[in-house]
């Protein structure tokens, strides 16, 4: 059996998306900036795609900018809000410790540009509060950036409440909704969201397409200079196949959001419940305020990469926040922010499901994983010490 359980990393392109993309590569290959018929047909498709995102985000079409992905959208949102703030002498930005690196590293860049950044601590359940945001806001705060849902542990943040706090304080609010878009309802009006980033390949669209929503009146600063595409705010000939695929995938995801969640939540909860029965394991993040397909736990005494390799051998694709998989010496900053000790964070496992995953696949994971954890623990000198009281169990 093969089980793809890494849908937070990327998803398979759906047939709907592919069908929308193909004509852009074949008969409708024109440049939307060209005045002749084939170009104008492309321009119409571009406008249609834009209106799909506007519709399901409860935005206006003029507020939608297509980018190369979530990272570019995050970069542009933060840079733009910073430039607006700087004009008024406001150079303080609030965010959280467990944002995606597309946000955290952009914030580091803002610091080099003279901004001051406050990163909020992460409560034990992985859900920051609007009150934390309210307390951190200062007279010189120009931006609050809080992710909609965390990419590793799947916790969903109180975006509407944070939006209300920001609106009341007159501070711009950006949310990185890369993991949430297409999976959770988003209403930029009701949630007081000023800037929002999303990425198509997280909801069965193609890679290389993102959207930046920016409320009307918010002047965007270009990340890419050049032609007049995207109202002059994002140069470069539009990625027409990607954009049309993204829009088709987004519409489909939004139309089926409730039934997808109804399918996924029982699978997620079964995996969380059963896997947390493995001794000395712990669920990362709130069990309820959580993306429908996200399962994330730590197993003490094992190392994540080994677990992934053995799962791969059994036909299961998953991910981990161990140092070896993060490509650095430290395990995931998300798990550390959550308060997991380094030793425990190295043994994390993330399974992210989508609507095509089945109950049989979840059962297969459950039939395989406990044996892998046992096997690695048997081999581990750390586990030996833990079991003989020479080292204290941390979970």
């Amino acid at each position, binding site marked *: 059996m093969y089980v793809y359980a890494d849908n937070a990393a990327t998803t398979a392109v759906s047939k709907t998306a592919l069908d929308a993309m193909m004509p852009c590569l074949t008969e409708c290959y024109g440049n939307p900036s060209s005045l002749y018929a084939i170009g104008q047909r492309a321009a119409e498709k571009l406008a249609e795609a834009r209106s799909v995102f506007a519709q399901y985000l409860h935005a206006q079409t003029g507020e939608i900018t297509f980018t190369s992905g979530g990272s570019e959208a995050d970069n542009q949102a933060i840079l733009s809000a910073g430039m607006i703030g700087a004009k008024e002498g406001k150079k303080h930005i609030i965010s959280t410790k467990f944002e995606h690196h597309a946000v955290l590293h952009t914030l580091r860049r803002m610091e080099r540009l003279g901004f001051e950044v406050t990163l909020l601590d992460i409560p034990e359940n992985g859900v920051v509060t609007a009150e934390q945001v309210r307390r951190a806001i200062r007279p010189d705060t120009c931006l609050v950036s809080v992710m909609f849902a965390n990419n590793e542990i799947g916790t969903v943040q109180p975006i509407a409440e944070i939006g209300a706090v920001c609106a009341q304080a007159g501070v711009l609010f950006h949310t990185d909704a890369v993991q949430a878009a297409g999976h959770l309802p988003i209403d930029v009006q009701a949630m007081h969201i000023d800037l929002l980033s999303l990425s198509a390949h997280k909801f069965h669209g193609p890679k290389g397409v993102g959207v930046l929503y920016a409320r009307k009146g918010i002047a965007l600063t270009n990340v890419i200079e050049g032609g007049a595409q995207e109202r002059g705010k994002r140069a470069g000939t539009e990625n027409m196949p990607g954009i049309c695929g993204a829009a088709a995938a987004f519409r489909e995801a939004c139309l089926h959001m409730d039934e997808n969640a109804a399918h996924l939540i029982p699978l997620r909860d079964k995996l969380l419940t059963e896997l947390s029965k493995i001794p000395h394991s712990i669920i990362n993040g709130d069990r309820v305020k959580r993306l429908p397909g996200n399962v994330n736990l730590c197993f003490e005494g094992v190392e*994540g990469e080994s677990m992934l*390799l053995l799962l791969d051998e059994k036909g299961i694709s998953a991910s981990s926040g161990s140092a*070896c998989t993060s490509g650095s010496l430290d395990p995931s900053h998300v798990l550390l922010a959550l308060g997991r000790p*380094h030793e425990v964070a190295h043994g994390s496992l993330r399974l992210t499901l989508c609507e095509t995953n089945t109950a049989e696949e979840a059962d297969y994971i459950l039939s395989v994983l406990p044996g892998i954890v046992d096997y690695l623990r048997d*081999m581990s000198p750390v*586990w030996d010490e833990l079991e003989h009281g020479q080292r204290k169990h941390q979970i």
Partner: protein
Amino acid sequence: MALYSEKVMDHFQHPRNVGKMDDADGIGEVGNARCGDIMRMYIKVDRDTQTISDVKFNTFGCGSAIATSSIATEMIKGKPVREALKLSNRAVVEALDGLPAYKLHCSVLAEEAVKAAVRDYYDKNGIAYGDELKMDCEHCTACDEHQSAAKAR
């Protein structure tokens, strides 16, 4: 291209000489759980011939940490103790048909685990040793932090 060579995957999936040794003559442990890998190596020494008659390991770590431990045990088993000390991380990497650059520190850990086990054996038996057993981490450019906690048990 796969992350690891076939040789690495073979040793990861079928580790040689894995397990505890209750009557070990020398035990070496290097690494740090905080950094994500610990290797513990056990050696049994034939006193007459001063050869390593048996070797076992326990490792907490990634695929390459397990593979380097496994192949290192194969490379020193049956060898004179003095020769085992000459096992270099480079030799471990070559025997595994290479490692990704950011995994090279695992091969250093394997070399150091062997040295730590031999040093423990020497210490327990009052055998003097020289510079070749110094726990020198500076030659590992892959990672400084990983090496700092090297210690003999």
